[in-house]
């Protein structure tokens, strides 16, 4: 029996996965082949999508960057003529020809992603799925589970890193006629897509984690709060829930125990602040998604005032693995205080963009250079931005820093939910700070004075700095406001919103000063502070830039050096990008 699997998570689809799938289907039909065509999730190598795996007689071949044409060829050469197309193959029988991407990884959360068909509960079961919950129901008391999770050292993967075992214990000890489990799938950091990939690639592992949590704290009802912008993840989840209900894995007395459990999906409108526990709860309750002061924490007074345990997707996905493999094995990974693995969405100016899962304790350099394959276009590595809008920038000089909650927090950034954006020398750090602050400013729920107006005023200062209108005292005012916002906001959004600004000031103060005092952007990125010019020695007069200029700001004759007229130029940078001779220079 031959199987062909197409990577059809959101990354696969955006790379053209559906066209590839259709082509394969067409070809299989045309040749009347006995091939089972399957969809699978994201393997993490988003930069190699569309990925197609051919499984035949116990062997497998993984093709990369497949297009419909290539797909046709794969059917013709590989299937019909039994000649695998060697040039396109990424891995044979699971072993990658260039294993640098996976070398440093350890896949626990992503164990099934890109491997199984997320729409099939049986495939999940075939990988040992739903064994953990059965084991728990049969052999473990709630306290036993708490013990295992506590000893595993698992910490909340949503960002703050609160010990999961302790959180469950508090919820377990809280009194309430009813309790709730909530899975926070409101992943909102720009550039982060870990949770989406897990939900799209392996939804059952999350459901199983929730069941175990429910049993542990004594909850019979659960919600998955997921943003409506993840339609595919929602569809996958609905299928998974339906399959579970059909099999009796959800509902009354599951797996023959006296434990009953039900899960509902609540789609959120994509408000970033709803990733905050209390705002998320308010949103499920049908109220405006605004945080409230804690204490009382949700573990004591949560959804509709009942004790509620909230974990994010990645946290839940870890749980079945820990139960099945034992806490010792999990705790053997990582550092003293950060155990296990962490999934990162690697993005930015790095060669291998995608989803990676690394054991805690690897260094930033290892992620950027070994797994990530280094910086694109031979530019210089400048910094990584970690933790999204709540996080900060860690400079290249600190590349040997290890992935560990506390180590990262010391830098001013945070582990966060796992966004990691690699920045190179062409990135302006003031601009980076502005980008993230603009995001938090727009996403603030507007409740607290400092978050609502303070971040706006900070943003305005950054805007004037990048516009070349910075004032003497701006950095000090930024720092003052930032520190006040951090200590005077109700929820994590406000408390961390200044981090991107503070870390960039901390590590790249001279860049701010260059903008303010010299009206210069060292990264040549801030439009207001740069001018495009033509290096007459290098210009060949090819006319390309002249033709591409959208505002006719370039004049010149063929084979003679051109001129850019700065009064008309809108600094869009197209000339710079199209010039083949590096003749366009930025002043």
């Amino acid at each position: 029996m031959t199987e062909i699997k197409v990577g059809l998570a959101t990354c696969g689809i955006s790379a053209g996965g559906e066209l590839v799938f259709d082509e394969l289907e067409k070809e299989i039909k045309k040749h009347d082949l006995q091939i089972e065509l399957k969809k699978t999730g994201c393997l993490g190598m988003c930069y190699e999508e569309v990925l197609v795996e051919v499984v035949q007689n116990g062997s497998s071949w993984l093709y990369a960057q497949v297009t419909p044409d290539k797909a046709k060829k794969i059917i013709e050469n590989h299937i019909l003529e039994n000649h695998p197309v060697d040039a396109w193959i990424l891995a044979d029988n699971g072993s990658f020809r260039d294993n640098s991407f996976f070398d440093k990884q350890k896949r626990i959360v992503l164990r099934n992603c890109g491997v199984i068909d997320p729409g099939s509960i049986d495939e999940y079961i075939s990988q040992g799925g739903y064994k953990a919950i059965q084991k728990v129901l049969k052999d473990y008391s709630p306290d036993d589970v708490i013990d295992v999770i506590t000893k595993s050292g698992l910490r909340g993967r949503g960002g703050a890193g609160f010990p999961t075992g302790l959180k469950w214990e508090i919820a377990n000890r809280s009194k309430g006629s009813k309790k709730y489990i909530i899975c926070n799938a409101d992943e909102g950091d720009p550039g982060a897509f870990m949770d989406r990939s897990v939900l799209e690639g392996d939804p059952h592992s999350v459901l199983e984690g929730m069941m175990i949590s429910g049993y542990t704290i004594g909850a019979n009802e659960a919600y998955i709060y997921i943003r409506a912008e993840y339609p595919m993840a929602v569809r996958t989840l609905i299928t998974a829930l339906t399959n579970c209900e059909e099999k009796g894995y959800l509902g009354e007395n599951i797996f023959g125990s006296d434990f009953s459990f039900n899960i509902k999906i609540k789609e959120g409108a994509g408000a970033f602040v709803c990733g905050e526990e209390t705002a998320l709860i308010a949103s499920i309750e049908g109220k405006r998604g605004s945080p409230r002061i804690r204490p009382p924490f949700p573990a004591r007074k949560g959804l509709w005032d009942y004790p509620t345990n909230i974990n994010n997707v990645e946290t839940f996905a870890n749980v079945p693995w820990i139960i099945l493999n034992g806490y010792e094995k999990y705790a053997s990974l990582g550092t003293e205080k950060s155990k296990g693995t962490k999934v990162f969405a690697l993005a930015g100016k790095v060669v291998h963009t995608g989803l990676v899962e690394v054991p805690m304790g690897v260094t930033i350099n290892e992620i950027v250079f070994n797994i990530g394959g280094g910086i694109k276009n031979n530019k210089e590595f400048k910094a990584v931005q970690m933790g999204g809008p709540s996080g900060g920038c860690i400079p290249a000089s600190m590349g040997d820093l290890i992935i560990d909650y506390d180590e990262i927090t010391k830098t001013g950034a945070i582990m966060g939910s796992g966004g990691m954006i690699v920045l190179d020398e062409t990135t302006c750090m003031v601009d980076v700070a502005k980008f993230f602050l603009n995001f938090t400013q727009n996403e603030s729920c507007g409740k607290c004075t400092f978050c609502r107006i303070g971040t706006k005023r900070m943003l305005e200062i950054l805007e004037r700095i990048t516009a070349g209108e910075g004032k003497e005292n701006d950095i000090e005012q930024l720092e003052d406001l930032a520190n006040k916002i951090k200590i005077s906001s109700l929820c994590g959004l406000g408390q961390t919103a200044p981090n991107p600004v503070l870390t960039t000031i901390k590590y790249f103060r001279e860049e701010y000063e260059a903008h303010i005092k010299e009206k210069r952007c060292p990264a040549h990125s801030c439009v207001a502070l740069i001018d495009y010019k033509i290096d007459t020695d290098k210009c060949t007069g090819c006319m390309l830039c002249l033709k591409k200029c959208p505002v006719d700001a370039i004049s010149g004759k063929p084979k003679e050096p051109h001129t850019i007229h700065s009064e008309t130029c809108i600094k869009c940078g197209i000339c710079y990008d199209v010039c083949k001779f590096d003749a366009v220079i930025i002043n």
Partner: protein
Amino acid sequence: MKKIRITINGRTVITAEGKTILEAVNENKIDTIPTLCHDERIEPYGSCFLCVVEIEGLNKLVPACSTPVKEGLVIVTNNEKIQSVRKTALELLLSNHYADCIAPCIDNCPAGVDVHEYIALAYAGKFTEAIRLIKETNPFPLSLGRICVRNCEIACRRNSVDEPVAINAVKRWLADEDNNHLWTPDIKKPNHKKIAIIGGGPSGLTCAYYLTLEGYSATIFEKFPELGGMLKYGIPEYRLPKKILDTEIKWMTDLGIDVKTGMELGKDFSIDDLKNKGYKSVFLAVGAHKATSLMLDKEDEVEGIIKGIDFLREKQNNKMPKLKGIVIVVGGGNTAVDCARTSLRWGADKVIIVYRRSIKEMPAHPDEVEAAEKEGVEIQFLTNPVSIIEKGGRLTGVECIKMRLEKADPGKRPRPVPIPDSEFIINCDFLIAAIGQQVNTSFIGKDKDCKLEKWGTIVVDQDTLQTSIPGVFAGGDVVTGPLTAITSIAHGKIAAYCIDEYVRTGIVKKKNEKFLSFKHKLGEISQYEFDHIKKVGKEKMPELPLSKRKNNFEEVELGFSENQLMLETKRCMECGCSEFYDCTLRKLADNFNIDISQYSGETRKYKIDDRHPFIVLDSNKCINCGRCVRTCSEILKVSAIGFLYRGFRTIVKPAMEKALLQTNCISCGNCIDTCPTGAMAEKFPFKPLGQYKKENYESICNFCSIGCRINYKVIRDNYFFVSNSTTSIRNSHNNGYLCVKGRFGHRYLLDGNRIIKPVIRKNGIRKDTGIEEAIDYTAEKVNRIIKQYGPGSIAVFGSPKLSNEELYLLQKFTRVGLKSNNISSFTNLFRDSELNCLDESLGITVSTTTMDDLSGADIILAVNANLTDDNMIMELKIKAAQKKGAAFIYVNSSELNPARFSDLWVDSKKGTNTVLLNGILKEIIENDGLSFGSKIKNFPELKKMVSAYNAEIVSTLTGLPRERYNQLVDMVKNPASNIIFIYNIDSRREKSFNDLKAIGNFLLLTNRINKKHNGIIILRDYSNSTGLLDMGVTPEYLPGYVTFHEIQRIRSIGKEWGVNMEEIFKPVNIAERIIRNQIKAILIFGEDPLAIPDNIKYFDDLDFLMVQDMFNTETAKKADVVLPASAYIGQDGTYTSCDRRVQEATRVFNDKGTLENWRIITNLAKKIGGNFNYDSNLDIFNEIRKINRCYTDVEPNDFWGSDFSGQSTVSQNREAGFAIYDTDIVTYNAGNETILYSENYYRSKIKKKIT
């Protein structure tokens, strides 16, 4: 609650778990923590971050309002870090608070005259108040009203619409009006401290005026023969008639200012001399009277050349010979224009102004320039004299040169430069050089310590005006150089303040300035704000015709008419904030010394939403504290408003940005009171007076029987609004919350229809008369009718909104004076109410429990009560009880609002509630042992009466599904549950005849009458419906519910009153007597039965009708005598709420000069007979306590019958038993027309607008 120990600012305190840090701090009075978003009546929120405090061991600050205390917490409530964060929070909020604290006209006036307020007062016809207000900052309205440069009009926001409000013309009108009977200010007791003021111009006079008011002896030393300074010697007669100026000066000096004219400093005396003579302080205000020279050759030698200011002064002193021929005036300022226009009037044939710049740069007021041109003055711009042409020492012409303007530096006027070879000659007979004045400080000769600027003006501290000599101050032109009269006046006022400080304390300090926010400080003012305002041009100032101006000095501007005044004041757009004094944000900004420009950036700007008839939503002022949102959702459960958008754009608005009235807003206005700024404000029926001082008067609401505490904010006599935002009122039984009636209903007192003078109508002719005459006439009529037809021929009616004292007097007057039992109220007479329905079972028909008790109820059952419309605050009390765990059952056939928040809605058919209650009684009798109930009288009859009402029959008759009926029965049958019934006697929408009797039976049967947290609250529609019966304003009862059977009681009351009460107090059917024409005269106090035209049948054949009312009602229009009534807020009195709470209402203001009602009633009664000698309201109340057994022990604001026990205390002579009745399923079908002016006003003018 568990006690815990915490440390606050180093002090260990014991508090209880569950409290917030703020509560712990407040209850121990440790600190006053500022907050904007906190309102103790709603759940803590924590958003403004003003209340932040530090907790040891925590690296962030926490909001004290919403952080719970924990054992061992170590808290610091004030340190540098905390203060800095609080200040920044305020600065951030204010950086996005696009609002004017006060109108820009006030801010732009150098003297800070409260323009906005005096215009509002003028518009309201309160002219004396307006002039008083003006004179608080400017004692020269008569003069300045004519000649002020009007910076206020420049700042007027109306410039963005059409033209500025003619502010100065308004001021002039007010001053001219005041001139007829000059208002005199109060002067403090003389302190015999002498102050010397050098110079009797506007600055010196102002200083002397304000010092005199403070009790000082001010002496003005003036060089010239008369006071007035530049007003007298610089401004020509046709602009400011000297008679007017002299009147104003005399008004000031008459207050006791000592004036010494012809005394020149430096010549006749020195500053040291003054000090030696005991003057405590000196104010130098000698002005700038020295003309600037043209610097032309022979300028001072040639005949025919005059200096401008000298010309004007000599003209005033009658020493200026007449001019002739052509007169050239050099200069572009006001003096130049004054000289030109004076010349025209003083013989010149032609006048030419020569000015070196263009019209744009001309410093003279444009209106003056325009007037001069109209009168024929020619102006040659860009022209400058260069030499004088003379013949034999006599001027014949001037050589001038053309000028051009160079590009100006920013903020400066362009520099004129001569154009070479453009010289030309103008022939003329006179040349007046009016290019400016200078300060002459030669007097300083003897006082060398007084420092001068290099251009000659005196150096002063800008804030205090103190010179370099301690205790010597200077102001006006001598400091500023020639400037404006209003600046001089401002200086005079500042100097008076600082001199007072200096003399009293020895310290010179400026007056504290209040924090003020202004829109123009937060960026551009957008034109769209004004788009919706209708363009209405300003009123034209009537002027002397041009033909009449030549050769005379009559005043040119004639002043507005009163009609013009009204039109012009109406144009005022009321900038500035009505919440000026109540704005917490502004107060805190003051305390924290906020710099509004600290964080500049984008400011959110919104259109003001004034679509609601009574509530204005100005989102520009909103600080997102959410108090209104939370009050609306948590307390009212209405949620008409909420937060919209995210981030910086987040704002409070009605849902979907609809108009408030399109949401489910109930217009209660409680959002206004909780708003810490002016974002939620009242739309007043008058122009709001922001800065004007208002006084708070707490009293009782006079609408329904809940008896809410209410705070009237009084602007001036009978000019007020309701504002329940004070702390004490928030702690009242209604927590300061009000319904729409309480909030906006009292506006009827501002209605123009008030009766102020008594009226007698004889032979169809109305005549205003005096109160004594009207009372005499009434007494005479009444006495005559009694003589003719007997005492039973007179009937007296009182309104259920009168006070207990008034009602008591009315019935006493009827019974003792008229010797009749014809006492009632039309309100009860028309409504065939169940006023005695509980007498049979409980012995008395009153509430057996109180609203305070609701919080302890398990079940609250409302029957026949439209709470939302009639008694909304009861609804809030129920919602609060629900929060504490009570279940609320609402019995009503249609889904009125209470059904929506009820825990069980029983929608039995109209008219079937007796059936429903019978069913419940049957269930209880059958299922319980009832050792108590079965021993009560009529038990077998009761059992028999309800035996037929099994669940099936009840369900069929009421239309209630069996399941819901069973649910109801289950809820009410548990004997251990605390059950309180709520029943509105006055409401007739859902009534069947014996509902109340059935409820009485239930309470009696289940022993719930004397049990705490059990019983019935009988709601009434009007504020003193309960007191009306308590006082015996009914033929059924004497005061204290004494019935006809209680002979002993009747006798003893008769003895107290000095009459044989047994003869008088007899059953009577008043309605029948009227219809049968046995009543010949009716005296009505506060009711308007003819509001319902059909009632005319009661009045057809009357010989005499007297009405006392506040308003000219339909009934008053028919009356033979109309007596003016005092408004309830114009007098003291007690009122008894539906749950027997006797509350004191206090006088808020003197009401339109009318007598208090109790005086009118006693005066009338005295004329007819009986002991009616009272000195005060309290006298009457004390008599009530003596006569009325229910009130014997009651203290004001207490419940009567606080140890209430139905049968035992009240009806000892009767045995209570179950009421037996015929169960009917016929619905009441009576309308609910009202015969009270206030209610009809509410319905037609308030309710209609919001539904």
